[in-house]
């Protein structure tokens, strides 16, 4: 389980997270939604220790991680996989080398076993035959699927998805959501998804948290969020221009 308690983070004078309290239950899919630029990715990076809070605490399986040193943090990272917003593939390596990289560096598997596992992982995300290509030869959707294959390969217990479908066409979008749902059912990992895909994200999530102005204003099962009385949540879900969310602040 991941717990954030009173997490506060500022960049210069801009407060991005303002005493955020949130619990991510184990083995479930939790979606974090909210307007753009509200700090959803920042929140995700706190969960994995890539950013440290100015105030507050972050717990992963009961261990407070915000004060950990590099080596201890590496131990925490062993539990995680992460799909970055732009996939963060190593641009000087081929697709095969990208996916194989963590296996080559962290396991003692033979070349043949690694090749087999990489091919299986690429097949699993519907990407057979692209292993010799470089990331800049792939479309956005393909990059995300390679990123997903790489994230899944080490069988992590927690996977963080930072906007896995942003900028993709509806078919690819649905395919990626389906992939997340299937792999979650198969491997049973804890998933945290930052997304703008409404209403699709409600269909694959067990819980949804809404981040607005640096705070979690509501969290609960998708049905609860869908029928929320909060005017901000209602406006965000409906995509209406009328309401408390202003495009120009």
């Amino acid at each position, binding site marked *: 389980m991941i717990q954030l308690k009173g997490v506060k983070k500022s960049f210069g004078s801009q407060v991005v997270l303002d005493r955020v309290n949130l619990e991510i239950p184990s083995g479930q899919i939790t979606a974090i939604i909210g307007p753009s630029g509200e700090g959803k990715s920042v929140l995700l990076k706190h969960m994995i220790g*890539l950013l440290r809070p100015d105030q507050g605490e972050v717990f992963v399986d009961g261990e407070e991680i915000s004060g950990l040193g590099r080596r201890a943090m590496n131990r925490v990272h062993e539990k995680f996989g992460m799909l970055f917003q732009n996939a963060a*593939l190593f641009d000087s390596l081929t697709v095969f080398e990208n996916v194989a990289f963590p296996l080559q560096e962290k396991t003692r598997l033979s070349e043949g076993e690694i090749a087999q596992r990489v091919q299986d992982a690429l097949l699993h995300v519907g990407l057979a035959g692209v292993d010799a290509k470089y990331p800049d030869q792939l479309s956005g959707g393909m990059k995300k699927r390679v990123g997903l294959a790489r994230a899944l390969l*080490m069988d992590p217990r927690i996977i963080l998805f930072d906007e896995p479908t942003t900028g993709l066409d509806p078919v690819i979008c649905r395919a990626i959501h389906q992939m997340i749902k299937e792999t979650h059912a198969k491997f049973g990992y804890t998933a945290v998804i930052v997304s703008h895909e409404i209403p699709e994200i409600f269909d694959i999530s067990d819980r949804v948290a809404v981040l607005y102005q640096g705070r979690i204003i509501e969290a609960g099962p998708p049905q609860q969020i869908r029928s929320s009385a909060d005017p901000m949540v209602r406006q965000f879900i409906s995509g209406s221009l009328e309401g408390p969310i202003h495009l120009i602040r």
Partner: protein
Amino acid sequence: MINLVEKLGAWTIACLCELGRMLNFILYASYICVRSPGHPRHILKQISFIGARSSFVVILTAGFTGMVLALQGYYTLTKFGSEGMLGVAVSLSLIRELGPVLSALMVTGRAGSAISAEIGIMRITEQIDALETMALEPFKYLVCPKLIASVLAMPLLCAIFDVIGIGGGYLIGVKLLGVNPGAYFGEMEKSVVWKDIYSGMIKSVSFGVIIAWVCCYKGYYTGHGAEGVSRATTTAVVTSSVLILVWDYFITSVLQ
């Protein structure tokens, strides 16, 4: 007045923080180099990039530096009737001073900027974050191979610089200006001692550390976007070059 003092104080604190971070960076990098220096394949790749691919520019610079030294040295030495000492003047200037410094400045311009840009781009495209989330140590892949390669390649480049520079000096001094070839090499053999060679090599090794340290550091902590990477690259080259010259003064005074 208070405002000025405040600004000066803030600047001093910022400088000290930056120095502390840089020191921390090189100490941690050295620790990782000792503990897990990375795959030899990665180190060889960096030796090829920093060393072998810099050899052309180093050879070119060395040739012309030796030629200019011979030209200038000849006109100065003829005033004292000591043109026979030209070989000594050229070789000592190159081996003790110009070889290490100029080869380091050339490598900074050619490879240092590329190192900084490469790591900076990896930072802004979250590739370094990706390494961390895989529980892999970014220093092992990004910093240590470059640091080790730079330390190994710099003395070799310096040695090439010295030899080519002495050859360039020979070409101008002996072939063009008519200095006796026996005197050119004979006096050199008598005057250049082992200490001159190893002090030049020690300088080269320390310049290798400076180049990799500063350029990796600036790339690793780059600012946002393309502008941040461009600024990091420029700062890396300028800081490395200035540090090389400043450090050269101190190390020369110690090695005298």
